[in-house]
Structure formats: structure tokens, C-alpha cells
């Protein structure tokens, strides 16, 4: 082993309070103590579930470094050892909606990020088009779709375009805010297959916010459960079995073992829902909390 690499993400006591003139200050997230290690040759896949309005998106936007959220009101947020001060191409972000620019064709959408950094990356126009075309194929879109506009595409195809646009910049961390929540079930499963497939190819850490426990358990190797606002992570499941890229999501999610794992996380989730906010203990605050060591250790 070489020298230990700095963790991808490190959050020490981060809290974020929003102050709007004329309104009471709103504490969105608090006591976020987390570390996402840089696993050799592949990142970690962390899934975050929690009741709606618990600050999952706030957490992702803090990590993304949007200036509406920075700086954190308390604590420090570090990405590869450096404090997060601004958005960066290193951290791609995928949203649930409005993911494709309506005025750009599929190919131009994918090439958007590359064009932003064409000078820095020393890319010529034709190289950008080639790169975008390659990503178009990697997200399993047809070459014939390259010239289409987003409004001509289905929801699933739009998310593929958005994903390709994020990944074209080779981010070291991919932040996904309920990326499949607006999709119908078969499309969702298809997209999960695609994510599993792509994740085995790219060397990136993924943070995925989901409202589906099954999705979180299926995709993640770590699942965090957030409590109600002010949001904080109150339970963690590590070593969740990673999906096998060879097995389709639909098959993998119908087995009894999988159901067992979902069950375990669901129970913890319901327990969190039923616990009053004041009694929830953030994990890693002092090494205690509802920290579960592992799920379904094999």
C-alpha cells in the first residue's frame, strides 16, 4: 500500500442554517460528521435515504459547493483534503428534473461540460464531438438520437443524456439527487442497470439521494439514513453487498436475500421515523449513535 490517500469527502460537524429576511432562520442540516474513503480503483457508492424535507438535497448541494449553500454555518467540509469553496467539474451533479438544456441537442448537451473547459482540457471541436459521441454510446443511446432535442426524448433518455453530460468531464465524485424518482418502474430498473454498469467502468465515488430504500440497498455499498429536519445522519449500514453487473436489476431485486437486506434497512428507517427528533443521535458524533456495523455480512 502506498501512502494513505485523503478521503474523498470529509465533513466535520457541518451544519447549515438558512436565513431569509423576514423569516425565522431555518436549520436544514446539522452535526454532519462523515468520511467517505477513497477506495482503491473504485470509489464508494453511498446512498442516502430519509423522510422528505430532511435535508438530503441540502447535503448534496453543500458538497457540490453551490454558493447559495456555502459556507456551512458550522463545521468544515473537505473534498480530497481541501475545503469546498466553489462548485467544480470534479463533482458532477445529476438532478431529478430539468436535467437537459432544452435548447441543445442530445450531443450538444453531452458536450456542454467539455465545451466549458475546452481551453483548459486542450480539446478541439472535433475531439469534443468524438468524446460526446463516445459517452452517448456508453449510456446506451442510439447514434440517431444525437441530433434530437430533449423534448423529443422520454424521461429515461433525458436522464441518460444528463448522466453522460456529467460523466464526460470524468468527475471524481458524482452527486445524484433522486435521479430516477421521476421515472416509471421499468425505466428505473434500466437506469439502475446502467449506473451499475458505468460505475464499474469509471473511477468515481457516488453519493445518491433516493426515496426508495430498495434502490439505496441495491446500488449502494453504504446506506445512510437521515432523520427529520434539522437533518443529520442517524444510522449507517456498511458493507451492503454491491450489485453484480452481470445480473439485471429486476432479477437481483427479486431474490430473498435482497428482500432481507431491504427489510433490515426498512426497519431501521421506520424506527427513525417514529423516534422524536430530539432523541435522534447523529452517528460518529462521539463514536456512538445507531451505527450498525454491517448488513448481511457474507
Amino acid at each position, binding site marked *: 500500500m502506498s501512502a494513505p490517500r485523503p478521503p474523498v469527502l470529509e465533513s466535520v460537524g457541518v*451544519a*447549515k*442554517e*438558512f*436565513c*431569509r*429576511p423576514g423569516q425565522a*432562520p431555518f436549520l436544514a442540516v446539522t452535526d454532519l460528521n462523515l468520511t467517505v474513503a477513497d477506495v482503491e480503483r473504485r470509489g464508494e457508492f453511498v446512498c442516502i435515504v430519509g423522510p422528505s424535507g430532511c435535508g438530503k*438535497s441540502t447535503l448534496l*448541494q453543500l458538497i*457540490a459547493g*453551490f*454558493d*447559495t*449553500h*456555502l*459556507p456551512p*454555518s*458550522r463545521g468544515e467540509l473537505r473534498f480530497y483534503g481541501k475545503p469546498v469553496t466553489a*462548485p*467544480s*467539474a470534479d*463533482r*458532477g*451533479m445529476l*438532478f*431529478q*428534473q*430539468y*436535467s437537459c*438544456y*432544452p*435548447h*441543445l441537442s442530445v450531443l450538444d448537451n453531452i458536450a*456542454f*461540460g467539455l465545451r*466549458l*473547459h475546452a481551453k483548459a482540457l486542450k480539446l478541439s471541436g472535433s475531439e469534443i464531438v468524438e468524446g460526446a459521441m463516445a459517452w452517448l454510446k456508453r449510456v446506451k443511446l442510439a447514434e440517431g438520437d444525437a441530433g434530437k*432535442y*430533449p*423534448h423529443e426524448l422520454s424521461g429515461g433518455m433525458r436522464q441518460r443524456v*444528463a448522466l453522460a*453530460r*456529467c460523466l464526460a*468531464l470524468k468527475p471524481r465524485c458524482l*452527486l445524484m439527487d*433522486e435521479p430516477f*424518482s*421521476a421515472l416509471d418502474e421499468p425505466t428505473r430498473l434500466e437506469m439502475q442497470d446502467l449506473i451499475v454498469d458505468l460505475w464499474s467502468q469509471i473511477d468515481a465515488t457516488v453519493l445518491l439521494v433516493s426515496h426508495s430504500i430498495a434502490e439505496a440497498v441495491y446500488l449502494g455499498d453504504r446506506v445512510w439514513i437521515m432523520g427529520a429536519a434539522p437533518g443529520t445522519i442517524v444510522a449507517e449500514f456498511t458493507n451492503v453487498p454491491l450489485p453484480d453487473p452481470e445480473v439485471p436489476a429486476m432479477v437481483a431485486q*427479486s431474490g*430473498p436475500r435482497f*428482500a*432481507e437486506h431491504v*427489510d433490515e434497512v426498512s426497519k431501521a428507517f*421506520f424506527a427513525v421515523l417514529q423516534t422524536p427528533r430530539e432523541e435522534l443521535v447523529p452517528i460518529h458524533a462521539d463514536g456512538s449513535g445507531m451505527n450498525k456495523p454491517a448488513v448481511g455480512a457474507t
Partner: protein
Amino acid sequence: MRPAGSRRSLLGLFVRPSVHERPTPVELEVTQHPEPEEPPEPEAPAAHEFDPRPPAHGAAAGVGTAHCPPVHSRQPLVFRVREHISPGWRLVFALVPFVVALAWWLWFTAGEPEARHISPTVLPSPAEVVSGVPKLLGPQQLLPNVLLSLIRVLGGFLLAGVLAVPLGIAMGSFSKIGSLFGLITTFLSYLPIAAIVPLTIAWWHTGEKQKVGFLAIGTFAYLLPLVVRQINAVDHQYLLSAYAQGASVWQVVRRVLIPIAMPDIFNGLRLCLGIGWTYIVLAEVVKEGEGVGGVGNLILVAQRMNQMETIYLTLVAIMIVGAFLDRTCVMLQRWFFPWVQRGDNGEAGAPPRRKRKSTAVRKPLRGGEVA
């Protein structure tokens, strides 16, 4: 009754067999299929029998497919909400008011001028109006006047556009610039356009400068708030996506805000061109000398000479030219912005971003420090 086996297999699709005790499968069964135990249809009606009851849900739906039950629409026969009608019928309906108006007009203006219900100085008969056409096209020079007015309108419109679009984009993009001019913009949109004609004459006398200046002011006052609103309407998530890819402020404005808002800004321009075209008459008040001519002048002269048919014909010509301008703009819009989704009738419809969902990020929250 439905056989037990079939129910289990049906549920099997929804409820995964589980090893653990799951807390909800029984409730799930009940909530997903609220009426599994409902007494089944006593006997499915024979195919030839008419069943007055609405088709029942579940098992009965597939029975008797050979017989199509009559459609019980809640919509009345004649006026249906958002009914699809063919282009032919569309045209027929569009022509009805014209036919009715013409019939009314013919009836009211029939007979000798002295014996009519309405004096020809108020409403000339259709024949009298048509007889005025050669005079209007010939000595009164309708077409050159229309062209002259059109050039004035376009001049004012371009001047207003060149000023209002960049300023509006800057105001919509940067809150400080928006605040700087916001209050003035609000005041400006309540400016009574017609009332500034005397002012413009005082400033610029009656030449071309006055016409173009008047139209520029009028158009600007309408256009500026429209541009600001369209820039503000661009969903914040597009900006976040661009920021997340490391875009600079300038790149976000140039590559995201402006192009996404552009179809709607263009729509605003189209609206303002129409408004300018209807206001031109107000500016063309000079009867002779510098800055004479134009459709407004034509109407003014006809009024003095008591030629009602000329006034009516000129008004019709103004409306036709206006409609033509509008159609041209719509075509240009399709040409410039092929990504904009269109409604059923070919009008530029709402682009996809208008479909708001509650999950969308609206306005950026302002981050503050914990006290």
C-alpha cells in the same frame, strides 16, 4: 368467487416472498386490492343483452368484448371542452362572424342614403366602401403609406429591442442591476403611451425622429419587463447544473440563461411589434410638411374630408398587415428555435421547463451565518 389460487398468483407480482416477518404484507394486500372479496358479478350479461350499468372494474371488464358498450360521455354534444376539430371546421367557424357582420352591414345600409337606418357618414354601405378601393390604392397611395409606417415602426421597434433586450437580460441575471432599474421599470409600464405624443412633438418636432422616438419609448416600456420576467422564469436547476460543471458566471448567462429564455423573449418582441404597429397611428398626426404621410396621416386626412370608407379600408389594411407581421414572427420563431415544443394549433406552446413540479429548486436560498 375468484379462485384462491388466482389471487395468490396475482399478489405474487406485488408481494415478494420474504423470509423475515414483514410488517405490512397483509395491509398491502388490502390496500392494493380493496375489493378482492366483493361479491362477483352474479352472471356476466350475455353478449347481446344491453347492460345499463357502467362497465364494472376487475374481472367483468374483460367479459363480453364482442359487444362494445355505448360511451357515456359526461361532455355535452355541441360544446365539448378542448374538443379536437378539423382544420376545415376551424375555417368555417372562423368565417361565421364575417358572414354575420356582412349580412348585418348589407341589411342596415340597404337603400338610398337618405332612407337608411344609419347615415352613410357613419357607416357607408359595402358597395360604397368597395368603390373607395381604387381611390385608396391610387391617388391616396395606401401601399407607400403602409410601407412608410412600417419602416417607422420597425425603426422604433429595433431601437427599443437593442436597448431593452440587453438591459432586461442584465436585470434578470444580476439582482443588483435588477433592483437598480426595477422600480423605474414598474413606473414605466404604467406610462400612458398615447399621452406622450405631445411630449415627443415638443422634444423632436414632427419629423421622422419623433415617430421613431415615440414608438421606441412605447415599445421599450412594454418590452423591458417582459424580458426580465422571461430571464427570471428560467429554472434555477439549469443554472445549478451548469455551475456543477464548473461554469463561470459569464458562461452561465451566455450559454444557459440567454438561450433558454430566448424563445420567450422573442415572443415578447413579437408582441411588442404588434403593439407598435397599432400605435403608429397616434404618431402620424402631421398633415403636411416634415414627417407627413403614413397610415395615421391617411386616416386623419380622410376624417377631415369626411371619407368614411377610406377610414374603414385603412383600418382593415392596418389589421391585415398586423396579422401578416405576426404570422411572419411565428414562422421566424419556428426557424430560430426548433427546440420549442408547439401546441396543437401550431402556436408556440409552453417549453418543457414550464411544467413545474414542487421538487424543483425555485429561488436560491440566501445562506447566512449562525448567530
